[in-house]
């Protein structure tokens, strides 16, 4: 290796740029988190200092837990996200298998049809989606959200998974066929376990937008008992704008679950993006 690439001045400059940008990226999150543990006075007097013995307070969290049904919201978000991911992965993998494995009339056309939704956002059809949900009585149910997110996630899932399934060896599947396994058994027992890494990538890609979506919960399921965490914190914060302790605590409570999930899944997510799954 030539020494030009290891010039210490360059290395220092690179670290400086990255450190500055990391600070910019983390600063707002940090400020919100530390101030959520402070008294109202301390929030305004010294917004940038860590909570100390005399400025520590949990009053904001107490208000939030008393006034808002955050556990209910959290549960709704959890149900919607997990169920949507389950259907995206199951239906997506099945369709991807059909497209990757069998030759039939209209295969390419079907692939193109399913790929349309990658570029066209589902939000464009919101007016008719709302009408559909009203006429089927699904408004203000979690089912409405699960259906919408499943439809939204399927195109990219089919696209990514069918690319991976083309790479599964034919010998394995044919060996299964000779042993008399049905196509369903071949799919569920032989192929699915082999594409698990791709399924994880699809899951992680879909998880964040579903969890964070505000548009569809606002339009399709704004009732108190079906509010997701994102919508719930939006409404709560809107009502408590002047109660800074409560607002900061509500924000922190919305940040924490995502942050924990991110710490768990960040390697998977980054590997998924950098493996070129979305080229």
């Amino acid at each position, binding site marked *: 290796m030539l020494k030009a690439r290891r010039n210490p001045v360059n290395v220092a400059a690179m670290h400086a740029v990255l450190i500055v940008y990391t600070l910019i990226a*983390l600063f707002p999150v940090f400020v919100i988190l530390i101030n959520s543990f402070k008294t109202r006075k301390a929030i305004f007097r010294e917004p940038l200092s860590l909570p100390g013995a005399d400025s520590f307070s949990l009053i904001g969290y107490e208000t939030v837990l008393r006034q808002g049904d955050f556990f209910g919201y959290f549960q709704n978000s959890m149900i919607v996200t997990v169920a949507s991911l389950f259907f995206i992965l199951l239906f997506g993998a099945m369709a991807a298998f059909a497209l990757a494995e069998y030759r039939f009339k209209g295969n390419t056309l079907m692939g193109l049809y399913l790929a349309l939704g990658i570029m066209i956002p589902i939000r464009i059809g919101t007016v008719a989606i709302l009408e559909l949900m009203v006429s089927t009585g699904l408004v203000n149910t979690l089912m409405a959200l699960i259906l919408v997110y499943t439809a939204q996630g399927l195109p990219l899932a089919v696209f990514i998974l069918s690319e991976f399934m083309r790479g599964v060896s034919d010998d394995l599947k044919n060996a299964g066929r000779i042993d008399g396994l049905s196509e369903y058994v071949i799919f569920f027992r032989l192929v699915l376990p082999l594409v698990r890494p791709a399924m994880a990538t699809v899951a992680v890609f879909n998880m964040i937008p579903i969890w964070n*979506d505000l548009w569809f919960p606002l339009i399709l399921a704004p009732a108190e008992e079906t509010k997701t965490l994102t919508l719930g914190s939006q409404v709560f914060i809107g009502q408590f704008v002047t109660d800074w302790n409560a607002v900061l605590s509500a924000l922190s409570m919305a940040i924490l679950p995502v942050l924990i999930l991110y710490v768990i899944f960040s390697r998977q997510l980054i590997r998924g993006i950098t493996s070129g799954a979305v080229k």
Partner: protein
Amino acid sequence: MASRRPIRWHIVVFLAPAVLVYTAIMIFPLFNTLRLALFTEVDNVRHFVGLENFRTLFGDPRWSESFWNALGNNFWFFFIHMLVQNPIGILLAAILSHPRLRFAALYRSAIFIPTILSFVIVGFAWKLILSPIWGIAPGMLDAVGLKFLYAPWLGKEEYALTTLSLVSVWQFVGIPMMLIYAALLTIPEEILEAAEVEGITGMSAFWKIKLPLILPSIGIISILTFVGNFNAFDLIYAAQGALAGPDFSTDILGTFLYRTFFGFQLQLGDPHMGSAIATAMFAIILVGVCIYLFGIQTRMRRYQF
């Protein structure tokens, strides 16, 4: 094929659930929305009016003013993303892709954190930080002697949209960074070493060798940014509400669509005018995607290693 094969039912079973859900919840409503744009409702009865809604949207000054305002704002929103988000993303990716850079994984994960936060968190967090009441932003500017630069950015008509665009840039810079980073990793080491032997290193290696090789990825990022920006809604709604204040200066197509079809405060919802706006958004996105697919992507040279 001469002999007719029996229908292979398992193919139908494998395809059916995905095709049904996708068709019923995505494709059918999409076309139904385009169709609804041609109707209007009088006394709870739906009438076909042809292109009347579009004539109202573009011709009636009350509507057209809001529409052009939202569209113009949306283009500015997109412009800031292209001008700030993507260059910063490329710069960060170029630094991160340096071989043997220490703590690269740590930086990468930290810089990606804003991208995973919801718009509600991002919108409110920045609202609080920029707020003149709390005083974090003026206080910090004061510390470096630039307090005169401070203004309540989100409250001023002339700054609010740019400020929100920059907040959105802050949130999403991780995506171009990751995609460009992935593209840079695929450039073979031999090419870079060959260039080094020729004396091309550092900045000139980036401009002359790496940048041309990652142009396809920059194209993908641009179209993703375009589609994302033209159906954006959440951040503006979380930070400024459905009225996209002050005085509609941050109104974009997403918030305009929401107010129109869902109704807000005293304004009643009008699904048919809403469909007309959605149709316009659909057309804009379609034009953008077509320009990308047929104008940019096919002309771009791809290199195989």
